[in-house]
């Protein structure tokens, strides 16, 4: 009986892992292609695994492009922008969830309403704003449009609304100021939701390539996504074949997957403890 149950559980886990691996097949495909010689890739026969670990694609990607500088730029932009974003969003959500004041409803609708404004399309106008602020070719110029995000405010407000009102009242009666309540009680006890928003934000900023493309025009300020699209444009030329593009793609994937896996552990464990409300 017991053994059978355990076997069933093992099969279940095996099934889940298999589903996950099938889901991630495109990534394994890219890794596999990145180690193939050009003649292995260019064939019409199905070739899922490289014959040998060929490193030439990586050599071209690393030696002929500034790929590590691009990754560094992407990291700085995504990290700082996400950090500023969770601070701005949590302060706004704190205000919207815990206070009663004139115009609160209107501000909330301004936040929610902005979610349906196509942000990509505002880029041209925003470029002129950023250019007027003299922020072209700066990290701040790339980051500044990502500081505010309506969804982050929305998620945090939803979470704060379910937060125990009694705890706040008790804190205020004890002479704890509003800001101290925010910084010392609310933020530490909502780390899981902060982690969620941070990951979503980091990935989102890391993913964008059109805005950085517009506000930068020097090579050393470019981000990883732009580098990839440039390799893509050069795909037809002799130097960058599909193997090199896949090698560059894998190099770019490593840091983002690493960051994600690192935070994933925190988020899954954290969300469970965080959701147990007092």
């Amino acid at each position, binding site marked *: 009986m017991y053994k059978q149950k355990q076997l069933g559980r093992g099969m279940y886990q095996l099934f889940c892992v298999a589903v996950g691996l099938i889901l991630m097949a495109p990534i394994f*495909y890219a890794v596999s292609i990145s180690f193939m010689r050009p003649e292995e890739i260019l064939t019409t026969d199905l070739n899922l695994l490289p014959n040998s670990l060929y490193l030439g694609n990586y050599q071209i990607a690393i030696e002929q492009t500034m790929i590590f500088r691009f990754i560094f730029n992407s990291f700085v932009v995504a990290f700082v922008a996400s950090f500023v974003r969770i601070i701005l969003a949590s302060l706004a959500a704190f205000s919207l969830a815990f206070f009663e004041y004139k115009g609160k409803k209107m501000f909330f609708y301004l936040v929610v309403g902005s979610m349906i404004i196509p942000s990509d399309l505002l880029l041209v106008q925003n470029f002129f704003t950023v250019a007027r602020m003299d922020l072209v070719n700066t990290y701040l110029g790339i980051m500044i449009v990502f500081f505010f995000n309506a969804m982050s405010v929305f998620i945090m407000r939803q979470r704060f609304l379910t937060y125990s009102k009694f705890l706040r009242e008790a804190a205020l009666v004890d002479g704890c100021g509003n800001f101290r309540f925010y910084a010392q009680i609310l933020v530490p006890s909502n780390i899981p939701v902060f982690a969620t928003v941070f990951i979503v934000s980091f990935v989102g900023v890391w993913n964008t390539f059109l805005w950085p493309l517009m506000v930068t025009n020097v090579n050393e300020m470019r981000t990883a996504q732009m580098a990839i699209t440039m390799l893509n444009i050069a795909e037809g030329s002799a130097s960058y074949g599909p193997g090199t593009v896949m090698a560059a793609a894998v190099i770019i994937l490593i840091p983002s997957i690493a960051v994600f896996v690192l935070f994933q552990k925190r988020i899954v464990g954290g969300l469970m403890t965080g959701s147990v409300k007092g």
Partner: protein
Amino acid sequence: MKLRKASLGKPVSALPLKTKIFQRVEPYLYLLPALSMLILFTYYPFITNVIHSFFTVDRFRRVRAFAGLRNYSRVLTDDSFLQAVGNTFIYVLATVPISIVIGFALALLAKKKTRFSVVYETLFALSMAISIAVIAMIFQLAYNPSMGAINQLFGLSISWLSDPSTALLSLIIIQIWSNIGYNFLFMFSALRALPEDVMESSRMDGAVRSRLLFQIIIPLVSPTLLFLLMSGIAHAMTSASLVLILTTTHGATGQPGGATEVIMSFIYGRAIMGTNFNVAYAATTVGFVLSSIVMALALVLDRKKVSYDV
């Protein structure tokens, strides 16, 4: 008299004036940094766009003359724009529900903590860590008619991205793949946050289990579902990255022959690759109106089913 209870526990009138003023402005101070960014980079450019759409502007975006609704009538009678609107709706209707259902199904699979659950939780969520530019290029190779894995694997000979009948479908498949991780992570968090006893009763037999799913679990996670639906629609209505990366060639967006043109790529083609700001501004406003209608519809449809415990 309106006495705001900014500080609970103490009567407001007993506090010194300075404290009272501070308590009045305090909530606005917390809102100010976020709000100023919101206005500067969302509402200001948006309103500028709407105003400009009623004027004729030159290619340096300088206002030349009042145009009334002329820009709009030009856009709304433009066949390529109407095709873009149609494609956008197909794109939204295909990508949003399917990726939420898959994300939810994976969350149900993973909801019970097991020894290897960390492994498959990570695999299920991982697609959100992969940039659209990178995954677009992986699929571009996989879709390649001769050396791509998809045709080789299934023995097909389809020109996925250059055949008008499969091009949009090809982009939809990539978008769904890309959305799964995000949807999974939110549904998974929502499921794990449910009370223990709800999850415990999932040991029951099939019939009861499906009733549990539809009558207890789905209503409980409906705020998360609504959030994913709304953010999914908002994103899909305005997304153009895949079109711009994969089906834009020689300065023409939404190839082949407009088969993958969506509202946003249409606007890009006019405003950034070309300098036809008149059409672009009007198309932008139309896009905004359409997406707000769809969002409102989603809200109304879900109002009845969603349980808010706020």
